[in-house]
């Protein structure tokens, strides 16, 4: 069988696994959300109770009526309806916003994607380079400093890093805006002031997300590079007097990038999960904030829809990387 046919078989197999992963993950998400304690009407009832000075029972009745939430539908019925909707390409319905969840998500998803893509590029590029550098400097002061810094950064939750970035760079040094998506007075649209303002205001969330992931890339790249540096072919290359740049590019970086690349999808997923708190620190209008609010209000339709997007995005990213892998690694191609 030709290489191409083998690749097709490989891709098809991965596609089947992708579908299985997505189905399993979405089922888990659905049941976890739906079995969460809490009635969507309760939060609204407390709000009505306090705003209109009502007894709780009256407020609860008002809230249930306002949401149109049918508490009597069993969870398996809702699950089947959910699957049916997915096959039609529909995400769900937001109880609170009284509109399709896709409409609600469409407003916030692009902002999160912008931050995550920029943060991924920044953290991957800088982190892996620093990791390779640290590997060459292993045992020396530079390696110790980078390694320790990475460990410390990795142990800090994204929320803490976000707060540090906001206060240090925003409040004290006034280097970045204090939050928001773009400056007041800028007209949204395909115009330069708006686009530049968007990038400017994304600096804070991008830095916060990137700093967390950068340490992860640094450590992965360092550890993998250290292993490769000990290989005979590298020592042979050094003995042959190959230039250091050539050595890194052709002998170290090629094998090192593969295991690191597979972590890209996980990293993306991790950042997506961390976006909830990072966005609330920076008042950034992303999907993380939307999810936090949906969960707090028990807007199950919206929460499940957002999780659906996240699950599909991360598994798709993983799938694409798996498709790229044989093209990058001749050993996998051969097998």
């Amino acid at each position, binding site marked *: 069988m030709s290489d191409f046919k083998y690749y097709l078989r490989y891709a098809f197999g991965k596609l089947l696994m992708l579908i299985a992963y997505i189905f399993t993950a979405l089922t888990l998400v659905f049941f976890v959300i739906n079995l969460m304690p809490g009635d969507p009407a*309760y939060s609204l009832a407390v709000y009505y109770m306090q705003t209109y*000075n009502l007894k709780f029972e009256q407020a609860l009745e008002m809230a249930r009526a306002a949401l149109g939430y049918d508490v009597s539908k069993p969870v398996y019925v809702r699950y089947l309806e959910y699957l049916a909707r997915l096959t039609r390409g529909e995400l769900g319905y937001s109880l609170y916003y009284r509109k399709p969840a896709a409409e609600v998500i469409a407003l916030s998803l692009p902002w999160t994607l912008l931050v995550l893509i920029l943060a991924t590029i920044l953290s991957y590029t800088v982190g892996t380079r620093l990791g390779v550098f640290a590997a060459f400097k292993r045992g020396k002061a530079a390696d110790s400093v980078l390694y320790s810094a990475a460990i410390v950064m990795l142990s800090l939750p994204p929320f803490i890093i976000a707060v540090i970035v*906001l206060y240090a760079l925003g409040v004290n040094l006034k280097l970045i805006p*204090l939050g928001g998506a773009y400056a007041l007075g800028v007209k949204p649209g395909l115009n330069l*002031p708006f686009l530049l303002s968007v990038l*400017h205001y994304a600096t804070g969330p991008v830095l916060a997300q990137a700093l967390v992931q950068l340490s992860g890339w640094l450590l992965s790249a360092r550890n993998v590079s250290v292993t490769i540096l000990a290989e005979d072919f590298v020592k042979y290359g050094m003995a042959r007097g190959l230039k250091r740049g050539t050595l890194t590019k052709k002998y170290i970086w090629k094998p090192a990038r593969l295991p690191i690349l597979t972590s890209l999808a996980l990293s993306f997923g991790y950042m997506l999960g961390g976006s909830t708190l990072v966005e609330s620190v920076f008042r*950034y209008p992303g999907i993380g904030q939307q999810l936090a609010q949906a969960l707090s209000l028990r807007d199950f339709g919206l929460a499940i829809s957002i999780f659906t997007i996240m699950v599909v995005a991360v598994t798709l990213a993983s799938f694409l990387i798996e498709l790229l892998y044989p093209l990058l690694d001749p050993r996998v191609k051969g097998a």
Partner: protein
Amino acid sequence: MSGKNTPEIPKTLTYLLVAVLVLQLVLIGQVASLSSSLAAVEGRLRSVEEGTGVVTATLRDIGRFLEALGTNLTAGTAPVKQIPKPAVPREFRIAGWWPWPYSGNPYAPDGVGVLYWLGYEPLVYFIPGNQTYIPRLAEEWKLEGAKLTVRLRMTTWNDGRPVTADDVITGIYMAQALWSWPYEIKNATKVDDRTVVIEFEEPPDPALLASITTSPFVSFAPYSIYGKWLDRAKEVATLGRRIWLMQIAGQTVPEDLRKEYNEKFAALRDEVTAFDPLKTLGIVVSNGLYYLSSVENDKMVLKLNKGHWQAGTASADTVIVYRWSSNEAVWALLMAGELDASHPVTPKDLTDQILSIGPKMKMQVVSDLAETPAVVFNFRNPLFRDINLRKALILSLDRSKVRDITFWFQPAYEYAHGVLLSFQDAWLSRDLLNRLTKWSYDRARAESILKAAGYTKGSDGIWRTPDGKPVKFTLSAYAPYNDWVLAAKEIARQWKEFGFDVEVTLVPDGVLSNVEQAGQFDAIIEFGSAWWGLGHPYAGYSRIYEGWVGTISGIVELGLNTAEYDTPWGKLKPLDLVRALALEKDLAKQKEIVERLAYITNEYLFYLPIVEKGLPIFYSESRWTGWPAPNDPLWTLCPGGIERVYVVLLGSGILKPVSG
């Protein structure tokens, strides 16, 4: 090979990459700033252009003046002309919340957010501090029995239409139809364009009257937009009221009536809540001092409603609201001087940091009209039905330590009478206070009470009840409220030290009301006496003896509110007193009733108050001056809607932009 084979290219590349990326970010930032500055310069140039126009016009005026002067000099008189002063920024900046995406539909489940008070007028504002009313949409009103006649102000919606009786009537029926409230209103009729008669089922008690007149729901439904649903709303409201009246009378509601109501209600609800004014009309029509000019996820811009009756005296043209996504985001804005006023809860060190920005940053603490943290007992747990244990619990707790880690700027409690400390002198006489037991921290006294009641301390240091059971219970706190969590941990620590086996459990986000409603707690941190909306002790006692606290604690279920308690005035039932207080109009008699309730609440310890919640309001005098004095009763309007205070201060021109 030696370790000196350090690759230069990767090192150089790394440094170069880092430098390029950082430079890019800074450059983008600078260009963006420059771009924004250019936009601002463009705006300024436009202002200069306008200013030049003003100057030209002024010069023309001066010319005419001189001409007139010349003429008048010959006639012996000299008219004086005012030269216009340059404009100062009239932008007020605060933080707030709104749902996103935003529809501007007040009937959507999440409502209109911060626009609630800034954009919509209630009939009146009620100042709890001095128990007075500030007329808002209602210029005059008269209550005669069950009829409330309201004369509306001459004012307009932001689309220019006048506010009329039709609008108020539409608001009332839409609320009844969609919220099943207030059903106590029998009907609302128009006398003329500016007069509405609201007829109640029976003469309204002060609480009901206050909640109806101080809520902006009457302004939510301009007739020009929501009038198309008015007939259906009246129909649904009528059906709903019939059912409600039957339920009150203890009658069985016929199934066909209920079915008809459910169908018509659901159809109306789905249609009205799906209505998106912002998308459909491009405008959110409101009658408040400010209207929505633009809204994004992170900021909202409101502009002055030029047809509002206070437009002529209003001192701010624009209100900018930054999204309150988290306390951390608001603290950052305050510290950077981006807000003119805000009210985030802050720990002491952060408060000091914010105030150290400069002498113009001030903090005013106002009562939030509620006690919190307070410990609410679940009387279904027999442990708490013993008054001796409750006495020991309060005496063995140093409430000032709990105060220190929560509302450290508030005075410590000595009593537990249910009247907010800041209103104690207004409602309770010295004579009454002298009769009340002071529950100051006294472990020795707590021990002696327990021993006298038959409690013993085991070898493990844990107190045991007279029948040998350990005094063991959980103290729950709502996890998202970190002040409640801190309070619970400190209280549990003190009680553990004393010898009670207390464990803190956290209630997850979003399920507090579920847990409380189901009675799934032993003791829980909650709001105690709360006077929201009314600023009157009735609200607090109603909450304890028949409201939320009464329900979740089992006070109502177990009949503890209808039992008789020994008092210096004989045996009294708390619920009877609360009901009497609701109907009593004479202030002196109200005080008598309040004193009796205070006695029962203090001596029988139905809950354990710790501190009166204070609302710290940070305000800056850098851009705005004229903030009220610390003891001004207007501050008491803050709880439940601080935006009302801004509306009063800005609308009347009390708050003025700092010139220069």
